[in-house]
């Protein structure tokens, strides 16, 4: 496949500029700022579009039209590719045996679309890949990219360079993945752990701390719950004991009271008996008095009447019946005697009774007033009744408790109350600062989520690194044999005069060379030889990448800093490569054209 023509309708500083190319070596000669880099970018831009900075080559003169076209020849098929950079559309015209097909694709380098997909498939068919980056890294050799600074000329560096034969620096990617892995964690799955903690370890520590805190909070909560139950139980026990103590105390008081009441009751009863006895005496005496008073002889009014009547009747009888005075006197005397005796007897009896009456009365006088006595008795009886009622009341309060129990209860209660106070204080002390497990658990949840993400990320990165490393080894095993063979071939052409038995180790691509039958190390290779080595590797890679498509190679004067000898060696290489590939060498120097002979090359002057 070769590029036949580049037409820059409007691209950067170029306007309506057409460059034709030929098979073999095309040398584009131009001074600095003549637009050599723009030309290379035009190739890239037409094929792939610009992902970033698409306005960089906006035409200076006519920015409304921003177009460029490429003509290619691929096994007798002519292909015209024209890109409108403003619209990001590509016209794809294919001519084969007088047959022409034309397509227009919306082929922006960004996003996805069916049209872009078809277009990229066509590019992939042409080049074996369809990425501008691959194009840049494989088909393009920049200025100074072949130059190795002297301090890097160690075996390792050269080996390193050799291992980077491919389009990207895969080993660097592995290192980058590893670096990113170790930014997250210090755990090294394939060796000694790093010394300092990384974010994952910090996070894990925070999680452990928080878990510990939650555990403690939960434990505290649990023990507080138990403590709270204990306090409640204590309170209940205290209440029960207090009730019992009260009962026992009351019982003891009741027993004491009952004894007092019994004593009082006896006293009252004794007093009452006494009173009752007195009352009986009074009653008897009163009875006696009544009897005496009843029996006391009274001056018989009838006798007195009779006596008076007799006194008056006698003279009347005398006068009427003519009774002698004698008789009258006799009768009178008889009457007087009779009455006199009668009165005497009566008087005597009367004084007897009076005496008796006086005796009884005097007896009654020393005795209390019966009315008051009755009142006292009544009072006493009431008191007895009251005492009886109280006794019943107190009897109800009497239990089996005794003084010993009271004492023991008092003591127990004292202890219980003390314990209760202490436990309550404990509760307050332990419950102080108790955090809400809800808040802590939410924090823990957040941390764990974060940790999970980081842990997964670290696993992913390590897996990525391991996978890529394995793949690189596998790839090298499978493909490097081909490389080695190809490189040997190329290298032999350019270095056969200096070295013998040139060979590459099939897996590591370590070159082994002999100089005057002595094996030499690659570090002893001259700079020029190292360039050749690298250049041949690059060419082999291109061959491989293009799957034998014989892709063109763009060289942006990579030999600009080479000394004369090195440049001469490069010429051999270019000549050799130009046999199978189209080459574009951008340079300011006409030295190449002169050395190679203008007939053997196609020179374009900008």
């Amino acid at each position, binding site marked *: 496949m070769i590029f036949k023509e580049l037409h820059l309708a409007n691209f950067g500083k170029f306007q309506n500029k057409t460059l034709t190319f030929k098979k073999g070596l095309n040398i584009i000669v131009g001074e600095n700022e003549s637009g050599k880099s723009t030309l290379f970018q035009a190739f890239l831009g037409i094929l792939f579009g610009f*992902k970033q900075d698409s306005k960089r080559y906006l035409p200076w003169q006519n920015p409304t039209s921003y177009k460029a076209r490429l003509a290619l020849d691929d096994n007798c098929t002519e292909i015209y590719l024209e890109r409108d950079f403003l619209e990001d559309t590509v016209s794809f015209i294919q001519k084969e045996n007088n047959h022409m097909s034309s397509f227009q694709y919306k082929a*922006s380098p*960004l*996003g*996805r679309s069916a049209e*872009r*997909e078809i277009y*990229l*498939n066509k590019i*992939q068919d042409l080049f*074996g*890949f*369809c*990425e501008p*980056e*691959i194009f*840049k*890294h494989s088909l393009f050799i920049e200025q100074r990219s072949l130059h190795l600074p002297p301090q890097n000329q160690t075996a390792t560096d050269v080996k390193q360079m050799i291992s980077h034969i*491919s*389009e*990207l*620096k895969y080993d*660097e*990617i592995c290192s*980058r*993945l590893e670096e990113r892995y170790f930014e997250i964690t210090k755990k090294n799955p394939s060796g000694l752990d790093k010394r300092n903690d990384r974010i994952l370890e910090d996070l894990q520590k925070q999680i452990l701390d928080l878990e510990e805190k939650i555990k403690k909070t939960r434990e505290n*909560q649990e023990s*507080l*719950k138990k403590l709270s139950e204990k306090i409640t139980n204590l309170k209940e026990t205290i209440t029960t004991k207090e009730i019992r103590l009260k009962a026992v105390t009351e019982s003891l008081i009741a027993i004491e009271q009952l004894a007092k009441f019994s004593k009082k009751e006896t006293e009252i009863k004794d007093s009452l008996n006494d009173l009752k006895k007195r009352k009986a005496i009074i009653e008897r005496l009163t009875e006696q008095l009544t009897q005496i008073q009843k029996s006391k002889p009274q001056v018989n009014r009838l006798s007195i009447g009779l006596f008076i009547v007799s006194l008056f009747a006698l003279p009347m009888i005398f006068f009427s019946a003519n009774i002698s005075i004698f008789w009258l006197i006799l009768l009178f005397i008889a009457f007087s005697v009779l009455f006199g005796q009668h009165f005497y007897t009566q008087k005597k009896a009367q004084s007897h009774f009076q005496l008796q009456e006086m005796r009884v009365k005097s007896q009654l006088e020393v005795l209390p007033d019966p009315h008051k006595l009755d009142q006292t008795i009544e009072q006493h009886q009431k008191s007895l009744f009251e005492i009886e009622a109280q006794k019943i009341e107190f009897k109800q309060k009497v239990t089996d408790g005794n003084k010993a129990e009271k004492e023991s209860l008092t003591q127990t209660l004292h202890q219980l109350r003390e314990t209760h106070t202490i436990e309550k204080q404990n509760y*307050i*002390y*332990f*419950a*102080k*600062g*108790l*955090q*809400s497990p*809800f*808040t802590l658990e939410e*924090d823990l949840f*957040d*941390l764990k989520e974060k940790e999970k993400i980081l842990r*997964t990320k670290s*696993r*992913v*990165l390590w*897996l*990525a690194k391991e*996978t*890529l490393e394995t*793949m*690189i080894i*596998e*790839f090298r095993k*499978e*493909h490097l044999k081909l490389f080695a063979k190809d490189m040997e071939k190329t290298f032999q052409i350019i270095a056969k005069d200096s070295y013998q038995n040139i060979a590459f180790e099939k897996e590591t691509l370590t070159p082994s060379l002999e100089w005057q039958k002595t094996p030499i190390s690659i570090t002893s290779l001259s700079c020029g030889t190292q360039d050749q080595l690298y250049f041949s590797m690059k060419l082999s890679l291109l061959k*491989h*990448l*293009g799957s034998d498509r014989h892709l063109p190679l763009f060289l942006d004067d990579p030999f600009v800093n080479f000394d004369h000898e090195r440049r001469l060696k490069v010429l051999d290489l270019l000549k050799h490569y130009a046999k199978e590939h189209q080459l574009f060498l951008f340079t300011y120097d006409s030295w190449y054209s002169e050395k190679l002979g203008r007939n053997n090359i196609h020179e374009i002057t900008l």
Partner: protein
Amino acid sequence: MPLKVLHTADLHLGTHFPSLGNYGPEREKDFLTTFSSIIKLSLDQKVDLVLIAGDLFDSPHPSLNLFGTVKAELEKLIDANIPIALIPGTHDNIMASDHIYRHPFFEQTILFKEPILKEPKFLDLKEHPIYLYGMAYHPDVPGEYLKNLKRRDMPGIHLGLLHGSIQGSPDWKIYAKDFPVSIDELASLNLDYIALGHYHNRMVYSHEGKIIASYTGTPEGKRFKESGQRYVHLLEFKEGSPLELTPVPINTKTLLEKEIDLFTFPTQTSLAKEILKLSPQKEKTLLRIILKGVTENILDIEKIYSEIAPYFPHVEILDETSVMNSQWMSHLEKENSIRGFFVRRMKEKMDEVKDPLEKELQVASFKEILFEFQKKAELS
């Protein structure tokens, strides 16, 4: 005169936000600003009563500074003769012996400090006799004590405060410690309204056509699950008419969680532009973007972040995109390079892996490698 009541809950003042990075301390201030807005709203609306249904604070021991600020705000209500009824919640619970509600300041409020209600608290407002029922959350107090909140037979408006979880709330796992309650149980209390707290998104519960209870949700979103506008509830009790409940937006900042399918966004720049269009008030939006779908380019999340982060107080981007089925991948597969070899081998390998977790890891590592390929290529 109708009775006006403001209901809020789950303010979680004093929450720390380590996951928000630098914005964490600012977020704490947002919460306080929202709290001040609630107080201001109560004063402006001249409400007769403010109900706070638990988790006023995020912990039983808020800092002195925070408590001072909260006290000063609440005092504005007290000075305006607006009573405040509140219950401790799950976060600011009363298990600790030195919990904040022991502070004498709360004597000026109607605080239900006990986990078991004995008698409702009486309040005479605008000739409306009010009976307030509430219980402080305590994990060891069984749900049967809910019955203590049952309406007493007295004329007046009967209002409840409860910090617990209503069974049947969407996306919400309910644990025994969450004090689970059913709507029927709530209805059986026969209260005129129950101010609920604990669930962080707004929910209004009706029974037989009447509003019986509601969750206001957090007035300021605590997590991205609490995205969008946040509210408090204004309640109006008019004699003879049903209870009127008005949600009033109150949040200071808005959490916004958006899933974006990258199929429609060809470039990172257009993606960033699209993200910027998501919110009209970017300076008030805390954003979480979840990127999904198939992408042609492995995303440089840091770059996208750098483009959108300056516009928002806080941005987080979760990359859940896949490149497995991208066109890019199908081209890589055909390449005769280590990359091509790698893609072919990885695809084979992934087909062999059966364990879904292992597969997930493989896919992710694959993506990391591709990301590095792309980045390395772009850099060079």
